């Protein structure tokens, strides 16, 4: 048996030798939490596997079908079926798992400065988004090179700084949207359902509304964050596109995030 030396005899705590928990340490702990459960580990791994799988299928189609010609960017765009879907879910789980598994009680009793914990989680989300981008760029490079070797079409390396930056922004925004919905709802299934409705059902409703009502058609670009992001895919953002992006992003990203954070920081943690 080890003995427990009880320090701090006497009636008051001596805090002079204790330093506040450094932010970098919180980030490392939060990063560890994303992969130290089977569910978290497989979510991360399957994101990478799915990204590769979609590109390989695309590559196979490109090689076997004569009327399909592929480029580096078309490989990168295929991530809208993999990373773009799963990264927001990772963003959601970063936050909601603390509530669904009730670990927030332990997390916030070890670090009562809640803004620091949330900020550390946000940094982890951004790091994972960047990691996803790096993996996607690598896979697209490999697939495009294979395509050049295996198909009759010429290899097109249409990578550009603008494209890459737009791609990074797209993934980061996806992750942040998931994170914002999660902060608002603090519940994994609810946040995922709402996110799915937002990204798959809402665009159809917006389209329908725009077809039926002229006034709605004119305000739609300002409130439809999904369509505001589509010029990012081809890196063809104009000044007007950016203003659509900022305004609709404010509605769908900044507002839920702010309300959600306000709630997390004040909530009684159960």
């Amino acid at each position: 048996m080890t003995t427990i030396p009880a320090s701090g005899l006497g009636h008051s705590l001596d805090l002079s030798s204790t330093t506040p928990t450094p932010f970098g340490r919180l980030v490392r702990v939060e990063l560890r939490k994303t992969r130290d459960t089977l569910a978290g580990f497989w979510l991360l791994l399957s994101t990478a596997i799915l990204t590769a799988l979609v590109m390989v299928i695309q590559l196979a189609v490109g090689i076997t079908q004569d009327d399909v010609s592929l480029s580096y960017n078309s490989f990168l765009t295929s991530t809208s079926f993999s990373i773009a879907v799963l990264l927001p879910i990772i963003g959601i789980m970063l936050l909601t798992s603390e509530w669904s598994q009730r670990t927030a009680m332990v997390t916030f009793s070890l670090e009562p400065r809640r803004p620091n914990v949330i900020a550390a989680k946000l940094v982890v989300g951004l790091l994972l988004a960047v990691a996803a981008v790096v993996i996607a760029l690598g896979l697209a490079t490999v697939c495009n090179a294979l395509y050049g070797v295996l198909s009759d079409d010429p290899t097109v390396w249409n990578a550009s700084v603008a494209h890459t930056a737009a791609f990074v922004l797209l993934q980061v925004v996806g992750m942040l949207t998931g994170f914002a919905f999660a902060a608002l709802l603090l519940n994994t299934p609810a946040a995922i359902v709402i996110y799915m409705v937002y990204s798959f059902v809402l665009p159809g409703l917006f389209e329908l509304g725009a077809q039926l009502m002229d006034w709605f058609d004119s305000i739609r670009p300002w409130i439809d964050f999904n369509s505001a992001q589509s010029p990012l895919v081809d890196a063809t953002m104009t000044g007007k596109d950016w203003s659509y992006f900022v305004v609709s992003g404010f509605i769908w990203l900044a507002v839920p995030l702010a309300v959600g954070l306000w709630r997390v920081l004040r909530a009684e943690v159960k």
Partner: protein
Amino acid sequence: MITVEGLTRKYGSFTAVDDVSFVCQPGRVTGFLGPNGAGKTTTMRVMVGLTPPTAGRVTIGGHLYNDIPNPGRHVGVLLDASAQHAGRTGREILELGARTMGLPAERIDEMLELVSLTPAEAKRRLRNYSLGMKQRLGIAHALLGDPSVLILDEPANGLDPAGIRWMRGLLKGYAERGGTVLLSSHLLNEVELIADEMILIGHGRIVAQGDKKSLLAGAHGTASTFVTALDNEALATALRTRGLTVASAGDGLRVEAEPVEIGRTAAENAIVLTDLRAAEGALEDLFLELTSETQREVLA
């Protein structure tokens, strides 16, 4: 030292904790005792900053919990042993705690050994833990940062009798080295076994506090004693002539008097006693009486 001053927490019109004040001294194990829903957990949650108080405050060693840097190094907290990710291994849960607090990895092994979790058990995921194992892990987690104050909510819940004895030894030793321990329970026996000092709470209010002796002394009515003699009849007659209240109980008698008085009566009358002891359950009667307004069961 934990100081609770005029603490009140309301949820709408419901008052969970109503103007509660008490102090937990270093070097002592303080038991926080009350029926379910009496406000124990809410009070402890306010202590560690998870629940904002409606009024009043709690300081630990003179500081608000939220003002303590890296609080795990000063205050060990176990509020709910099940509030951990079911998919993490026991070891990983301690690993996360140790890393957050900036502790060396050896500390994890020390704590696992301290709470008698084997390396094989530490590799199992929490969903495969029994409640008793979760409690041991929770205590290991609370002790990780070598704190001088421990706040434990229902730590003995789910422990077997050997586990409760182990915890009593652990917490007593910890308090003897100068630590402050506050532990809650809704079971009187647990607290009676472990705590030096008791705070009884019911309906969000403190109904009594003190050590076991002073609580019993403060209770109205005299102490009662169980006694068994070779000749119970003769003893009962002798006791009644002294004006004591005697009732038969099991094999023997229950007498409303101190054991010494009964011993004296028996000696004077040359009656052989086979068993003489202060009645168990005196504290329990007191506990039930003090908290009766808030009991869910109506007392007979």
